[in-house]
């Protein structure tokens, strides 16, 4: 069953490095396609590193592998992904008159996903 989370897309040094290597490199693709989940949530949802999860909101969705966030970097209920193509799929076109779409602190749902044959 899908559970509500708050998604924080953001910059990482690995994203910055692989961005320079090229957006079509494996390193960049992996970096922007890996979802960090708090250890407590990984345990509660019986997820293991590499499991595929589907993240969605009213705007869009993406399906990516998840990993356990380092130490206490993420509080339970919060997800993190490197800013990029996937995170942007959950951004709406409305900027509430300021030019900036909601890009951080997004209300999303997460559920486990399976690879389609």
């Amino acid at each position: 069953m899908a559970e509500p989370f708050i998604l924080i897309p953001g910059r990482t040094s690995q994203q910055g490095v692989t961005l320079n290597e090229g957006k079509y490199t494996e390193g960049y693709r992996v970096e922007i396609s890996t979802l960090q989940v708090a250890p407590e949530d990984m345990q509660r949802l019986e997820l293991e590193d590499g499991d595929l999860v589907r993240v969605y909101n009213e705007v869009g969705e993406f399906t990516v592998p998840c990993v356990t966030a380092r130490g206490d970097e993420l509080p339970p209920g919060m997800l993190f992904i490197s800013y990029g193509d996937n995170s942007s799929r959950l951004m709406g076109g409305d900027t509430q008159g300021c030019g900036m779409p909601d890009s951080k602190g997004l209300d999303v749902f997460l559920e486990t996903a399976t690879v389609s044959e």
Partner: protein
Amino acid sequence: MSTTEAATETAPGLRVVQDATCTFCGCVCDDMELTVEGDRITKAKNACVLGKAWFFNHHVEDRPEALIDGQPAGYEQAMDRAAEILLSARFPLTYGLSDTTTEAQRVALAITDWIGGIVDTTTSVCHGPSGIAFQGVGEVTCSLGEVKNRADYVIFWGGNPAESHPRHFTKYSLMPKGEFVPNGRKDRTAVLIDVRKTKSAKAADHFLQVKPRRDFELAWALRALARGVELDPSIEETTGISLETLEEIMDGMKKAKFGVILFGMGLTMTRGKHLNSEAVLALARDMNEHTRWSAKPMRGHGNVTGADNVVSWSTGYPFGVHLGSGFPRFNPGEFTASDVLARGEADAALIIASDPMSNFSQPARDHLEGIPSVVLDPKLSDTARTASVAFTTSTYGINTGGTVYRMDDVPIPLRPAFDSPYKSDLEILRGIESRIRQRQLAESLPDPAASGA
């Protein structure tokens, strides 16, 4: 110092460029020592992990000068086609501009003016909300040199400099010994405010883990304490930070001799946006009742601050400016790129050194894909792949000289490392501008046949 004077040949085919400038992030570190072998940089002394990746991966790639509808083309033909596209548009958008020189930015803005379009920069999806906030409450500002030499209390808010600006701590804000902070880090108190306990937390004396989307409330709680207003302990339920901690922080802020708040996109991209920035800017202003405080946005791209400066000094507004009425009109939400694309309004686009096809909202991407576009980028991107005309350009700072603005609005000259066979953004934009003006002037002259001459 010119590029030539700064470069020395240490062995056949091997050159060292002193005091080169890194343009990857807003720190714009200008103390690089680059070793160049042919058309590659093989060493980048003083560069951080991001700077090294920047210098080592921008070598000359074997690509066509341009692509027209996906087919290889020369520069001249591509500039002709680009001018045709822009002249045919009724509501063209110029966008990007944060990863090119100030000189190129000026020409891009001139083109937009000639064709009566909108000019917007990546600022609108970065610190655009802070730009709006500046207009609301002003900005008590300072340079990074002042931070280095004076700041004894530094608050990082909604940012993760350890990963996004790796040398900020060591070059400007925490570690350096300065004139009034002779013991460097020992003379400074550092606070990190963020929703995540990022790698930057290790560098801070205090970490305040604010609840998501509660930055506005936290800033106003601190404003209240700055003014001596008593707060209810329930503020902890709202913000995630106890009243005791807030009072301790405010006590330290008031005792500081020179404080600075360096804030990131954790404020501008989250609900509240410009109101979050406004609250933090107002807090810095309020603190000047007690001691000296400033607030500065942490800027991401190498010359995004230059884009703000060029658009501001040219039009009076920093981004999201419409030039189609014969005078500049500024209205975020109406004339910002994300909006005019998502609403399906722009009918052509000139995109310089940016990749909105991979980081804009889906409705904006869908519309951009369907309109004619002219794209300038040193590397292939999703935006370049879908462009009607895609120019391959040289890389600013590595192949091209010029000026960029550091995140504290200080202009820094570039010292390129090696030549590129590809034209610079400036050269291509000048070529497009020249073609547009020739067409416009020809059309404005009276027809000799009609006048009987």
